[in-house]
């Protein structure tokens, strides 16, 4: 039996019940432990990436970046920043709409924190495992824009209002190609469950959905552009635009509420990169031939829970490393490319990204059918446990066409059943 995080929660709950606590209290405490873990993953990437951002931007601009705080590389810089921000006065401008101004940072933080609940960090290390995990995660992440718009509107400042309006326009349009690009690997995998999609891509790197067909390959890049835009990172940081709009929707904010926006920005950068890793880049699998089956053997078949826990820890490291690499690309792009104008941002999305992603979507739908007609299988290897839909379609000459069309919806069922069996 694999000790998934959900099982761990059950065991936490049952342990607490063993201590003569009532069921409600045990569940409450188990939930608190879960939330603290997820909140840790909310703070940890933010701390690392704020330091990385300062260091990388320094190097790109031929500076050293932070050097003093915490020894040689200034690695305590993020904590020093946080300490400085907590000490600042909590200002609300007289022209602002007070309650909305105060509540806006919390909307942003809560939505980007809640999105991490549905992100599997390793096989089964997920706070809430749902069949519609990806869908729900995108839904929760789309709430972040409400906080930004509220902040822009309630500040009572023209700079902030402009920033909020731009953010709204940008988010509403970039959500479309981003969602279409997310659907492409979902079609390939046949599941919306992020844990299942990640588990399918074991074996070597050719089993990653990125290399499944040309359409998923290009969809990854379109997704990454849209994800960068959805985190309002440069070259799409129109909501802040510090050279035009002072600081955009952040103009009137200071101190801890200001830092909430930044914590949320870095956490959602990590979240969108985590989605990219799970959907395209093999999730927690290393992609090295021969290594993944060994780790999977450790994870699924070993008697002791210590080994499967260690395997999951290794998977977590791999996942975190891949996601951090993508975040570093976002940082690199931010300090390399100049900002686009708002009309260029909208044109990029509506005239290029939306049509390209629609074509990729069509292609990804047609690809398995075309493969099955020509008799080829997808790439991939015997070391992987990937059940590509194209391979299943090949058995169509064995059964009449009408039933073969009926067999299609059954595939995800079969895949999930086998996974659940493996889980038990």
């Amino acid at each position, binding site marked *: 039996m694999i000790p998934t995080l*959900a099982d761990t929660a059950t065991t936490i709950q049952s342990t607490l019940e063993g201590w003569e606590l009532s069921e409600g209290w045990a569940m409450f405490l188990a939930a608190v432990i879960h939330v603290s873990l997820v909140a840790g993953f909310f703070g940890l990437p933010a701390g690392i990436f704020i330091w990385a951002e300062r260091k990388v931007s320094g190097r790109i601009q031929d500076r050293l970046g932070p050097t003093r705080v915490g020894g040689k590389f200034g690695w305590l810089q993020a904590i020093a920043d946080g300490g400085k921000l907590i000490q600042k006065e909590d200002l609300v401008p007289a022209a602002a709409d007070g309650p909305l101004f105060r509540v806006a940072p919390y909307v942003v933080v809560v939505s980007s924190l809640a999105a991490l609940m549905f992100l599997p960090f390793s096989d089964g290390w997920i706070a809430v495992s749902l069949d519609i995990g990806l*869908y729900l995660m995108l839904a929760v992440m*789309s709430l972040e824009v409400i906080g930004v*718009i509220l902040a822009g509107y309630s500040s009572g400042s023209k700079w902030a209002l402009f920033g909020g309006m731009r953010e709204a326009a940008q988010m509403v349009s970039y959500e479309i190609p981003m969602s279409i690009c997310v659907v492409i690997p979902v079609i390939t995998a046949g599941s919306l469950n992020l844990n299942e999609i990640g588990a399918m891509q074991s074996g070597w790197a050719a089993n990653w959905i990125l290399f499944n067909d040309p359409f998923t390959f290009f969809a990854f890049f379109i997704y990454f552009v849209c994800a960068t835009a959805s985190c309002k990172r440069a070259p799409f940081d129109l909501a802040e635009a510090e050279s035009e709009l002072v600081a955009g929707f952040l103009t009137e904010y200071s101190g801890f509420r200001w830092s909430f926006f930044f914590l949320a920005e870095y956490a959602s950068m990590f979240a969108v990169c985590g989605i990219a890793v799970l959907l395209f880049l093999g999730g927690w699998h290393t992609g090295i031939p021969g290594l993944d089956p060994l780790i999977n053997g450790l994870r699924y078949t070993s008697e002791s829970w210590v080994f499967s826990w260690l395997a999951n820890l290794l998977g977590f490291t791999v996942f975190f490393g891949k996601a951090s690499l993508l975040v570093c690309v976002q940082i690199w792009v931010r300090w390399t490319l100049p900002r686009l104008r708002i009309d260029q941002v909208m044109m990029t999305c509506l005239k290029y990204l939306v049509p390209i992603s629609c074509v990729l979507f069509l292609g990804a739908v047609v690809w398995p059918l075309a493969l099955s007609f020509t008799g080829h299988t997808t790439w991939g290897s015997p070391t992987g446990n990937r059940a590509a839909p194209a391979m299943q379609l090949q058995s169509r000459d064995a059964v009449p066409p009408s039933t073969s069309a009926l067999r299609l919806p059954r595939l995800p069922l079969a895949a999930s059943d086998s996974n659940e069996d493996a889980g038990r």
Partner: protein
Amino acid sequence: MTEQTLFFIFAILAGGGALGVVILQDIVRMAFSLIISLGSTAGLFFLLGADFVAATQLLVYVGGTLVLLIFGVMLTASGPFRRIKMSSGETLLGAAVGLLFFSVIAFTVIGVNWQAVPSHRQVATTPSDQSGNTSRAIGMRLVGIPADAEIGLHSDSGSRTGYLLPFEIVSVHLLVVLVGAAYLARAKRHESTDAAQEDA
């Protein structure tokens, strides 16, 4: 016990948010209390195990419609904080319509014989059976396959379309609305540019 507590929290938030929409006067504050109300309704759906409906509620209403609503207010507002002032006649009319609608719902709820309802669905509160697994069943229904039946068995039963046809009809209607909105917006812009040229 736990699910009852959660139910009351979400129910109070949903009801309070809805009241806030009626009572508050600033449009964006109204929109925010609508966010609270709709989000809590999504929470109620989660409690019922309808995870797909809850996620759709969040994505479509909270993340989509309300963003457009606030966006529209920001685009059209002339002053800094737009307010709605209603005359007393409008308030009375609105209250009458609201009361009528409330009584329709209330009588329907009272009219149901709740004792005869076979069994209340056990709400999944333990983490291991949190997953409502409704997305698959909804997808099967959409293409006309009953989720509980074995696939293959009912291959030649009567209605094969399922809910796909109504769904498509609704989406074509939405497309018509979108095209109409785009047409109206374009026409208006031409007039305004003409006017601007005349002014110049």
